[in-house]
């Protein structure tokens, strides 16, 4: 543009170019058409740069991951969005909470849909996080160097359970009240500190206004904050630990040939004269120089399309569920009239079923052992073999122990859900 151009036409040109300019100021790259642009697009976009520029083909195999981690994350996003919208209507007060539920169901725009989406996403997230945990265990992905990320994952699973549990009380109906009464009673079976934990959770000796307020604060502030932070750590560690796990033979062998003039390094080389790029610090086989053959593809579009697809499927499923099934809302709380049987949320019914055999072992002993085994798995199972394969024969023992625990728990959940009637007596559902 020459300075001779009249100011008026320059302004017009600016005006004409406004949409384009705004667009380009936001998105630095056009839709990529070559590898350089693909890399650049991934690298310069805030939301995309959390991904690697190139991703291993094994990570994209649907039957390897089933997208479970992503589904869990997307459900969390749905939960945050619907949860925040619900917060505009909810009052954590024993006198108002139930009325607010009725309003949400009756007269708030999209109230029923929001509540349904939040409810089913919450249940779905518990299930998906657990399945994700199973996937990671059964493919041996917790092994070196991903030990700590596994520990973070187990903590995320426990947080998810707690998150769902605290949300369970908020509708303040009979279902909520008695499920939390039972759930906190299970915590009370812990030795020494059990009763104190129970008291701390409920803010009293029974579920009441204090408990409702505590569960609300935990549910909408404390736990989401911790969960978000832990998820961030979880994702960050995936990158730093070299991406998703994969079998040893998924990468072509690289043999490092000795450099020709290999000799004792000169003192000047060791002096801090050279500036190193960050690549020098990144561990793992992704750091390669030159034309080394590998099994990676560009994230744009392979990974991003897969993620988008997972998101669309997740959202569709939740929307369909929310249209077909209404979130339950039972009678207003009546502390003097427990339903028989009073049941905990379904994911704790395995615990409740075990509690019916032995209060301590069912409610505290067995779950604690299971969680400790989960947390300790990568440090106890140090064998490097069997990573990246489902049900690898090298990991027969670990997988067998794990599956035994999981199947036992699932059986207990099924018994507790369908086969238990009044007074926790065995009943046939048909």
């Amino acid at each position, binding site marked *: 543009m020459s300075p001779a151009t009249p100011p008026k036409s320059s302004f017009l040109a600016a005006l004409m170019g406004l949409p384009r300019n705004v667009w380009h100021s936001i998105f630095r790259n056009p839709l990529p058409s070559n590898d350089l642009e693909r890399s650049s697009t991934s690298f310069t976009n805030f939301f995309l740069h959390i991904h690697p520029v190139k991703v291993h083909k094994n990570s994209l195999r649907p039957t390897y991951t089933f997208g479970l981690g992503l589904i869990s994350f997307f459900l969390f996003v749905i939960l945050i969005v619907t949860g925040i919208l619900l917060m505009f209507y909810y009052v954590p007060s024993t*006198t108002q909470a139930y*009325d607010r539920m*009725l*309003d949400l*169901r*009756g*007269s708030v*725009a*999209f109230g029923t*849909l929001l509540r349904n989406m939040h409810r089913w996403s919450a249940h779905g997230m518990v299930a998906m996080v657990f399945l994700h945990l199973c996937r990671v265990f059964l493919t041996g992905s917790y092994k070196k160097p991903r030990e700590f990320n596994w520990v973070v994952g187990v903590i995320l699973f426990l947080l998810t359970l707690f998150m769902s549990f605290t949300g369970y009380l908020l509708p303040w*109906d*009979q279902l909520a009240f008695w499920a939390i009464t039972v759930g906190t009673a299970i915590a009370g079976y812990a030795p020494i500190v059990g009763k104190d934990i129970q008291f701390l959770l409920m803010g009293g000796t029974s579920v009441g206004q204090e408990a409702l307020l505590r569960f609300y604060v935990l549910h909408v502030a404390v736990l989401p904050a911790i969960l978000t932070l832990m998820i961030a750590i979880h994702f960050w560690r995936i990158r730093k630990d070299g991406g998703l796990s994969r079998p040893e033979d998924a990468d072509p062998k690289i043999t490092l040939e000795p450099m020709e003039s290999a000799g004792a390094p000169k003192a000047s080389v060791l002096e801090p004269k050279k500036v190193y790029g960050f690549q020098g610090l990144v561990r793992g086989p992704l750091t390669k120089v030159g034309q080394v053959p590998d099994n990676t593809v560009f994230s744009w579009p392979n990974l991003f*399309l*897969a993620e*988008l*697809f997972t998101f*669309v*499927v997740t*959202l*569709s499923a939740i*929307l*369909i569920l929310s*249209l077909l099934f209404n979130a*339950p*809302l*039972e*009678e*207003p709380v*009546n502390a003097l*009239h427990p339903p028989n049987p009073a049941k905990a949320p379904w994911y704790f019914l395995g615990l409740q079923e075990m509690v019916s055999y032995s209060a301590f072992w069912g409610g505290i002993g067995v779950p604690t052992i299971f969680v400790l085994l989960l947390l300790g798995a990568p440090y106890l199972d140090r064998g490097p073999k069997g990573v990246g394969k489902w049900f690898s024969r090298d990991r027969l023992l670990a997988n067998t122990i794990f599956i035994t625990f999981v199947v036992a728990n699932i059986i207990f959940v099924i018994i507790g859900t369908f086969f238990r009637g009044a007074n926790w007596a065995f009943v046939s559902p048909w």
Partner: protein
Amino acid sequence: MRLALAIGTFFILVIHGVVFYNQFFHQWERNQHAYFDQARSLAKTDAERATLANRRPRIEQIVVSNFGETRVDRCTTCHIAADDPRFTTYAEPLKSHPYSAAMGDVQKNGKWERRHKFSEFGCTVCHDGQGRGLEPEYAHGADEYWPDPLLGYTTQAHWRKDFAPKLKGREYMQANCAQCHTDIAFPGTALVTKGRELFFGSNCYGCHRIEGLSDGTIGPDLSDVGKKWKLDYLWGRIADPKSILATSIMPRFNLKDEEIKALVVFLKSRKGRNFAETEIQRFKVKLTGGAELVQATIKPVQINAAEILKQGEKLVLDRACTACHKLGDRDGGIAPDLSQEGLIKDAAWIYDHFKNPKATMPDSIMPAFRFTDDEFKAMTAYLVTLKGAPVTASGEGIYKALCLRCHGEKGDGHGPIAEHLDPYPRDLTKDGFMNSKPEARLVSSVRNGVAGTSMPAWGKLLSEEQAKAVLGYIQTTFTKEPRRELKPRAVPEKNPVAMGKDSVARGEELFVNRCAGCHGKKGDGKGPNSLDILPKPRNLRNSFFVNSVDDKRLFESILYGVQGTAMPPWIDQVSNNDVGDLVNFIRSINQKEKGGQHAAPVQ
């Protein structure tokens, strides 16, 4: 992949379309449009038409704060014509609420004016239902979780099919009228009044407590039963108690459907506290026990001497005695047979038992009913005339006619009414017990009864031979083991230890150390071990029983134990003097009451 993505995205769009359609095209909006259109065609002035043309659908609501907790009633969102008198002939929901002079509505200059204005009363105060809901199903309380479906209009899907049709009808709303109109015999709440009369007439009050009305303790407290339960449950608990709770001991009363309905409406009106009561009124009722209301409700029968028997019979039948007892064809299946009452009890005993059942039978569960003395006397006069049918000579026939109700078909003491008797009927299959007692004692138990228990004296009905015949039947059918020669036992005829403070004190110490585990520290038979024992340990505070047995028998039971029961022999551990102290202690706690359950023993 791209195709799948496209399909998925399309799917989400479709779902959103459905959601938005549901959100913006509500049933209630269509109702309101229909109302505006109809009202416009009925409008008389242009101004009115113009206003109606400008009206847009919106959620109407009435906030009601005068009746208990604040209610938000959005019923008029759909029932938008409720207060528009032009719509009386239209179909619901566009129908005006009926005007009724009986409800206090008045006509002024040809215009009705409501006594119960919607702006003050809302809708749910009278109708129940869920005021906040906007979908008919939820608003009417048709979903199974809503505790107050529209009274008399909405039945929930899970209600029993044979009850549900009976639970419809506007008269059920009287339960809610009674929340404010608490006057005795208020004409608008006839069913509540009738139900309250039935509550007393059918003797419900004997077992149930209702604050300010009654104080029975056998059944559940019904003070706020109307707040806790829905109509179908109330109906079911009265019409078929065991169908709702298999272990219920509530009798099935011989009530017609209209009577059950009145009781259900009365019970539905019991909500703990109603809108009309003030704190001070409640306190007053607490002090007086609601005497005023009770007096107004109970209608005593004037007894005249000439017709005393007839009136007595009518009372026995009307006052639901046969809801528990057996009399002729009627059988409540809970309490003993009254068919031979005149032969096994005398007038004094029956009258005393009426006045205070526990005075003649310490562990009786029969409630004390609030009848007048005259009524009790008439009922007594009638009962002593009952002689039953003559019994056959065969042991089996006698057992089936007289014994089976308590001792059971198998003679094991688990008869149909056994669980309501205390002490529990004797298990006749225990040969240890049956064969360790001399025949004379068994005959005496049959003919003279066992004092302080439900075993009546059959002496006037059974001769000695008949008593032996039934015992013979029991021996061969239930006990089975043949009788053996009894070994003589060394038992003092009379207590060798003189009654005195020291002896009683020693006896008490011994009792607490050795006997309290089963018989309890108080000797009432409720020691910590008693739960696992059948027959239950003897209640040694049952004076009628204790005073009816002589020292010799107490000595024998303690020294040699009671075979066939959990009572062990103590002969190796205590001396005769110790037993003497124990007997003195047991006698000392039974000295107040005199007499017994029975008429003078038959000679």
